[in-house]
C-alpha cells in the first residue's frame, strides 16, 4: 500500500517533471540555434546557457508566479520555464522593435516585467544588493513572495556579493542566492577564484549554505524548494551553490581552447539533459517516443519563432534616446535634433 501511494504521488508529479524537461530541451535548442545564427552573422553576440539548464529549471520549479527573479545573462532556461514567451528572448537577442528593452541592450540582457524578471545588467553581481532591496520591499509590504537572485561563481568575489549577502542576513530578508557555479569565470577556474567551496561562503554571513547537484533538475528542485520555503516562512536567506558546468564558451566572442579542455560534452552522461532523460525514464514518466516528441517540438518552435522574430524591423532610432529620464531633458532634445 505504501508502495502504491508513493507511486501515485509520484504520478502526480509527472506533468511538472515533463514540463521541466521540455523547458530544458527548448532552451538547449534555442541556445544552439542562436549560436549557429551568430556564426552566420544573423546575431551579434550571445552567452550560451548549455550545462546550466537543470539548475535553473530546478529553481524555477520551486517558485510561485509572483516571486521575483533578479537574474543574469545566462537565465534563458529559467525564463522559458517560468513561461516567458520565447519571442521575448529572441527579440531581445535581435534588439528589434518588439524587444521589451527596445534594442538598447546587448544580447543576453533580458527584461520581462510581466514575468517578474528584472532587466539584466552586465556588471557582474550588481543585481545582488538590488535583490536584497526588492526582498525588503516584499517583507515591508508583508507579501508572501520571495526573491531569487542568480549569479556565477566569479561573482562571489565581487563587492556586490559581499554587500547583498550581508544585508540579506542582517535584515533577515526573503531572498535566495543561487550561485550558478559553472566552474569558470571566462578563463579562470573556480579553484583560483577562491580557496573554498562556494557554499562555505554562507557561513561568513550567518545563513545556510547548501551545495546542490545542479546537473540534476530534481535534486536542484529539492534544494531550491527548501531554501525558498525557509525564505517564504520568514527564516531569512540561503545561499545555494549549484554545481554545474559551462558546456559552451563564455560567449560567442570567447575561445575556450585557449585555457581549458571541455569536461562535459553534449550528449555525454554528465549532460544535464541526458541526466534528465534518465530520471524521467527511470521513473516511468517518459519513454523514448515522448522524449523524441518533446525534442522535435522544440526544434519546430525555435525555428518558426526565430524566423518570425528575425523579420521584425529594428526600433525607430528615436527610441535609442528615450527613457533616460521619464521626460526627455532639453539637452538630449537638442542633441537628438542634431543626430536624427
Amino acid at each position: 500500500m505504501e508502495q502504491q501511494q508513493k507511486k501515485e504521488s509520484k504520478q502526480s508529479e509527472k506533468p511538472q517533471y515533463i514540463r521541466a524537461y521540455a523547458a530544458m530541451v527548448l532552451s538547449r535548442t534555442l541556445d544552439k540555434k542562436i549560436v549557429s545564427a551568430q556564426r552566420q552573422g544573423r546575431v551579434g553576440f550571445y552567452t550560451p546557457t548549455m550545462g546550466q539548464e537543470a539548475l535553473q529549471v530546478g529553481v524555477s520549479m520551486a517558485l510561485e508566479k509572483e516571486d521575483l527573479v533578479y537574474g543574469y545573462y545566462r537565465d534563458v532556461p529559467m525564463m522559458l520555464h517560468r513561461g516567458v514567451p520565447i519571442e521575448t528572448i529572441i527579440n531581445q537577442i535581435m534588439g528589434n522593435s518588439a524587444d521589451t528593452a527596445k534594442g538598447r541592450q546587448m544580447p543576453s540582457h533580458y527584461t520581462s516585467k510581466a514575468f517578474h524578471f528584472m532587466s539584466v545588467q552586465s556588471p557582474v553581481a550588481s543585481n545582488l544588493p538590488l535583490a536584497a532591496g526588492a526582498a525588503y520591499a516584499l517583507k515591508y509590504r508583508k507579501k508572501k513572495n520571495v526573491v531569487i537572485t542568480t549569479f556565477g561563481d566569479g561573482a562571489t568575489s565581487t563587492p556586490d556579493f559581499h554587500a547583498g549577502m550581508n544585508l540579506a542576513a542582517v535584515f533577515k530578508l526573503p531572498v535566495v542566492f543561487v550561485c550558478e557555479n559553472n566552474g569558470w569565470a571566462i578563463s579562470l577556474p573556480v579553484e583560483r577564484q577562491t580557496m573554498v567551496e562556494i557554499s562555505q561562503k554562507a557561513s561568513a554571513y550567518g545563513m545556510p549554505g547548501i551545495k546542490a547537484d545542479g546537473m540534476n533538475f530534481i535534486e536542484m528542485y529539492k534544494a531550491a524548494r527548501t531554501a525558498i520555503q525557509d525564505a517564504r516562512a520568514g527564516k531569512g536567506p540561503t545561499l545555494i551553490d549549484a554545481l554545474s558546468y559551462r558546456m559552451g564558451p563564455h560567449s560567442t566572442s570567447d575561445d575556450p581552447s585557449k585555457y581549458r579542455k571541455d569536461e562535459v560534452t553534449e550528449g555525454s552522461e554528465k549532460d544535464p539533459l541526458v541526466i534528465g532523460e534518465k530520471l524521467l525514464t527511470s521513473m516511468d514518466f517518459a519513454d523514448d517516443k515522448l522524449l523524441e516528441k518533446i525534442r522535435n517540438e522544440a526544434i519546430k518552435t525555435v525555428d518558426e519563432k526565430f524566423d518570425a522574430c528575425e523579420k521584425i524591423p529594428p526600433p525607430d532610432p528615436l527610441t535609442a534616446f528615450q527613457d533616460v529620464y521619464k521626460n526627455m531633458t532639453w539637452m538630449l532634445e537638442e542633441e537628438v535634433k542634431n543626430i536624427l
Partner: protein
Amino acid sequence: MTSKTMNMVQALNSALDNLMASDDRVILLGEDIGTDGGVFRVTEGLLAKYGPERVLDTPLVEVGIVGMAIGMAVQGLRPIPEIQFQDFIYTAMDQIINQMAKIRFRSGGEYDCPMVLRTPYGAGVKGGLYHSQSGESYFAHTAGLTVVTPSNPYDAKGLLVSSSQGDDPVIFLEPKRLYRALKQEVPEDIYKIPIGKAEVVQSGDDLTIITYGSMVPTVMETVKKNQINAEVLDLRTLVPVDRDAIMHSVQKTGRVVIVHEAPRTGGFGGEISAMITERGIDFLYAPILRVTGPDSPVPYRMEEYYVPNEKRILNAVNKVMESA
C-alpha cells in the same frame, strides 16, 4: 501654513518627516541614521516616530545602501538613502552609474527607480581631503541622474520634497558648511520647489555670477559688501540645468563669472561656460571666468586657502568688468 525658524538641518528633517508622514513608500536607510539620528542630525527623531522598518541603520557598506535602495525603488518604494559623507560614495559608484542611472533606459521603461540619494558635501568643517569633497561633476556627467543642491533651508526642504516625489533618481547634495550657517522661516507643511529651475538671488545689470550650493552665501556676501551690480543665479539643479535662466541673464549682462568649490578641471563650471559660448559669443563683452577650488585635494590645516573667497571672487569680477 505655520512656519518656523529653521537651519538647513532642521529644514531637511522637516522635509523627511513630511514625506514619511504622507507616503508610506518613503524609507530611510544609511549608517547611523537611526538611534544616533545621523552624524549631522538630519534624521533625528525619525526612528522614534516611524519605527525601524522605515528608518534602517545599515552595516557599513555604501554599495549595499545604494544597491538596496535601488532594489526598493524598483519594487515600488521611494527610498531616501544617506551616504554619511559624499567622499565615501565612490564604492557605490557602480551602483549609481550602472544601475540607478540606467534602469529605466535599459529596461525599455518597464522598470524605474524613483529615489533620492542624500549626502553632505564640500569643505567647511575642517575635514581634510576625505571629509570635504565636492563631487557634483561625477554625477552631472552621468546621464539618467538628476543632480540637485540647495543653498538655504527653505530651498533645501522644497527641493528635497520635489526630488522624492519625482519619477527619476536624484543625487541630492547638501552643502555641509551651510547646515547650520543660517536660519530662515520655513513652512512646517510640505511644499515643493521645482527641479530644473534656477533662482535669481539678486537682479543686476553689470555681470552675471552663476553659482550653486555651498558658494551662494559667499558670493552674496561679496556682492553686497562690495556693492556689485551683479545678477546672481543660484542654479539649485545642476542636471537638467536651467538653460533659459542662464541665457536670459547672460544676454542681458554680457559678462559672466562662475563660482564653485569643486576643482576647476572638469568641474561643472566648464560645462556652464561651454554652454554659454556655444550659444553665441557676440553678446559677451568679456571672457567667462571661473572661480573654483584648485586642482588638488582639500587640505586640513589650510582649508581656508582652498575654498573660493571674497578676494578671489572680487578679482574675477574686476577682471571681467575691466574687459572692453
